């Protein structure tokens, strides 16, 4: 759907959005509509696809578009569009309202005043658009959709630039850890020390069976359940942090986690019984043994892999063997 089609189809909704903008700077209706269209293409693709080619939008499409447009941060979008265009007044406003905030975000990430100023300046440069594409200056502002707040978007931009700088300046610090987790899973599957006793053989057999069943069980989960487990176990987010993302209270997250755990247990038990012919007693023993062995490995791994300043917050092993979050 082109900008003209979009404007024609949702004329009323766009007018309402334009009416909401308090200060337009030098941005015209067409430019705002173009920015809104870009945003809709990104987040409302299905609706636009359904409307495209039809004489008019369906009631459902109109409702979805209306809700989407009414939820946009119109003023922020207009300011970003004006800044991308190079409007001086818009830049003045932006500088006045967001400069100190960007520096504070940068300081939080760099923990250094000088580095923070440098990061903030780099971000400003990106926002203005030093790079050119096809002879035209490309402002980072053109990527702002108005879906979230401009302030939050700036935080994410500063963070991204910071991560990029960090990655470029130091190869010693790893910012992504999936490989580590792969190594972890590998370590769990194949422990380093091999023994030849019958007991160790049984343990290894149990362990392999449990790992296979667990992998299958996790892959059988819904994406949101997997995300929940990843947030909690891998990213070590607190229940409150996860609750914030899922828009529920932390107690609800706790219930969800318990529910997912129960489901995984059922799936693992079923898998062990079905695929490995374990009886009920063997299923229970296998899970218990595997949990004990793998937990020690994980505790060691986590304490080794995290940066020094976060070690204090990592799970530690209690004397009884249980994992405790501080």
């Amino acid at each position, binding site marked *: 759907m082109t900008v003209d089609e979009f404007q024609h189809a949702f004329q009323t909704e766009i007018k309402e959005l334009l009416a909401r903008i308090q200060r337009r700077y030098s941005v015209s209706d067409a430019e705002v509509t173009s920015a809104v269209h870009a945003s809709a293409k990104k987040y409302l693709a299905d609706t636009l696809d359904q409307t495209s080619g039809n004489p008019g939008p369906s009631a459902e499409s109109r409702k979805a578009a209306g809700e989407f447009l009414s939820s946009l941060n119109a003023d922020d979008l207009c300011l970003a569009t004006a800044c991308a265009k190079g409007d001086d007044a818009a830049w003045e406003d932006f500088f006045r309202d967001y400069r100190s905030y960007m520096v504070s975000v940068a300081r939080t*990430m760099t923990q250094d005043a000088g580095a923070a100023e440098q990061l903030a300046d780099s971000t400003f440069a990106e926002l203005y658009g030093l790079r050119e594409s096809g002879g035209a200056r490309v402002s980072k502002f053109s990527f702002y959709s108005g879906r*979230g*707040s401009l302030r939050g978007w700036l935080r994410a931009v500063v963070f991204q630039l910071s991560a990029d700088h960090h990655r470029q300046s130091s190869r010693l610090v790893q910012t992504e850890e999936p490989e580590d987790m792969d190594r972890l899973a590998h370590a769990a599957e194949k422990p380093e020390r091999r023994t030849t006793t019958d007991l160790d053989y049984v343990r290894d057999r149990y362990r392999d069976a449990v790992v296979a069943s667990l992998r299958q069980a996790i892959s059988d989960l819904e994406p949101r359940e997997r995300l929940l487990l990843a947030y909690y176990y891998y990213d070590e987010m607190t229940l409150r942090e996860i609750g914030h*993302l899922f828009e529920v209270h932390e107690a609800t997250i706790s219930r969800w986690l318990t529910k997912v755990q129960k489901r995984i247990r059922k799936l693992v038990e079923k898998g062990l019984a079905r695929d490995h012919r374990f009886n009920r007693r063997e299923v229970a023993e296998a899970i218990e043994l595997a949990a004990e062995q793998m937990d020690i490995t994980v505790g060691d791994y986590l304490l080794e892999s995290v940066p020094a300043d976060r070690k204090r917050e990592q799970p530690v092993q209690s004397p009884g063997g249980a994992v405790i979050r501080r």
Partner: protein
Amino acid sequence: MKFFGQVKDGGIDNLLRAYVSRPSNPHQKCTDFDPDRANAYIERSLTGASRLHYEEHLSECAACRKNVVALVRLAEAETPASVAPARETPRFTLLSGAKQMFGALSQPQWAMVAVAVIVAAISVPLLLTRSESRQAASQAVAEPSANEYARSAGAPASPVANPTSETAAPSTFGDATARQREKSDEKTDVLARTAPAASKPTDAPAGVGGVADVSKKLEVSDAVQPVDEQHKSEGKVAQALAQGGAAPTSQVTKNDSDQGRQQQPEKDSTQESRESKAARADQQSNEKEKTARAEEAAAPPSPPSTSEAARGAMKRSPAKLSLRDSNAGTESVRAEQKEFKGKKFSFRDGAWTDKDFDPNKDLPVVTIIRDSNTYKELISKRAGLRSIMERFTPAERAIIVYKGTVYKLIPQ
């Protein structure tokens, strides 16, 4: 972190802690982190479908998820003031408002607070209602002391024998109970009352001490002379109310004194209207029976059914004494006096008061409504009293001590 009242599956928990990484496509490496989408997700601005798609991506992409987690922590590290966008247009809907409001209640500590508030909202009005009834009761107890002028001097302390002490109760009990009684008593034969009988609130064991007191008076009256059926039922109701109370006597006494001190001026100002109500009630009552009671009231009182010590204690109540003293102070302001038939009257508290009247003496009190049948019958039988009563105009009130009885003459 500890789970909320949930039994954590230790085995599975440990397994997951060890294993959860990227179950599928472990070698995916997303280099296309989108700050705009990530921020919209964190700010919960993504709509259903796009949110689900992004969550699905996050469940698979550890790199993006890691950035999102970092951004969440970064946002939370900011102070609330700085988190609020300076130029953000508020997007408040009814649903979001309700979510916000009731979402807070889902937190255990706020849920407890909410429960406490609800309990308080229910219990406080109940307590206040109960307190009001106590106040009313204590007001009822304090009222006799405010109307001490209605007592006669020199009579033996046997007020219980004096009948019909109930008459003025509706007018002196300023509470709802008394008003209810007043309405129902419009046709009740209530002519006279005995002040001592009304001064025994400390015997009442209940929080509604005043009502209990009334019930006791009723019982006493019943014992002395036959009372009409309505009185009996009244007594039963009052007794039931008295039994329903639970406050200790000392508390009631304290309330009595406090409330009496506070409410005396108000009572004085409204006394006249109340008594006129009582007068109307009296007029509609059985006149003959009233007369009989009035005559009996003049007779020597029988021994009290309650202990003299209790009544004595009540008479010496500091609150009541102070009230009486203060009244005396104000009464002396008026200099008007009348003298006839060897009796002197001074105008005090809106009534011509006999010089012989001593509120500290427990004399039987008979309330007479002017021009009522009882009044006519009384003056026809007692010529001496007639000569005195006729000296007062129909609108005047008078307290007359005549042959050991206090006659309270009130206008119609």
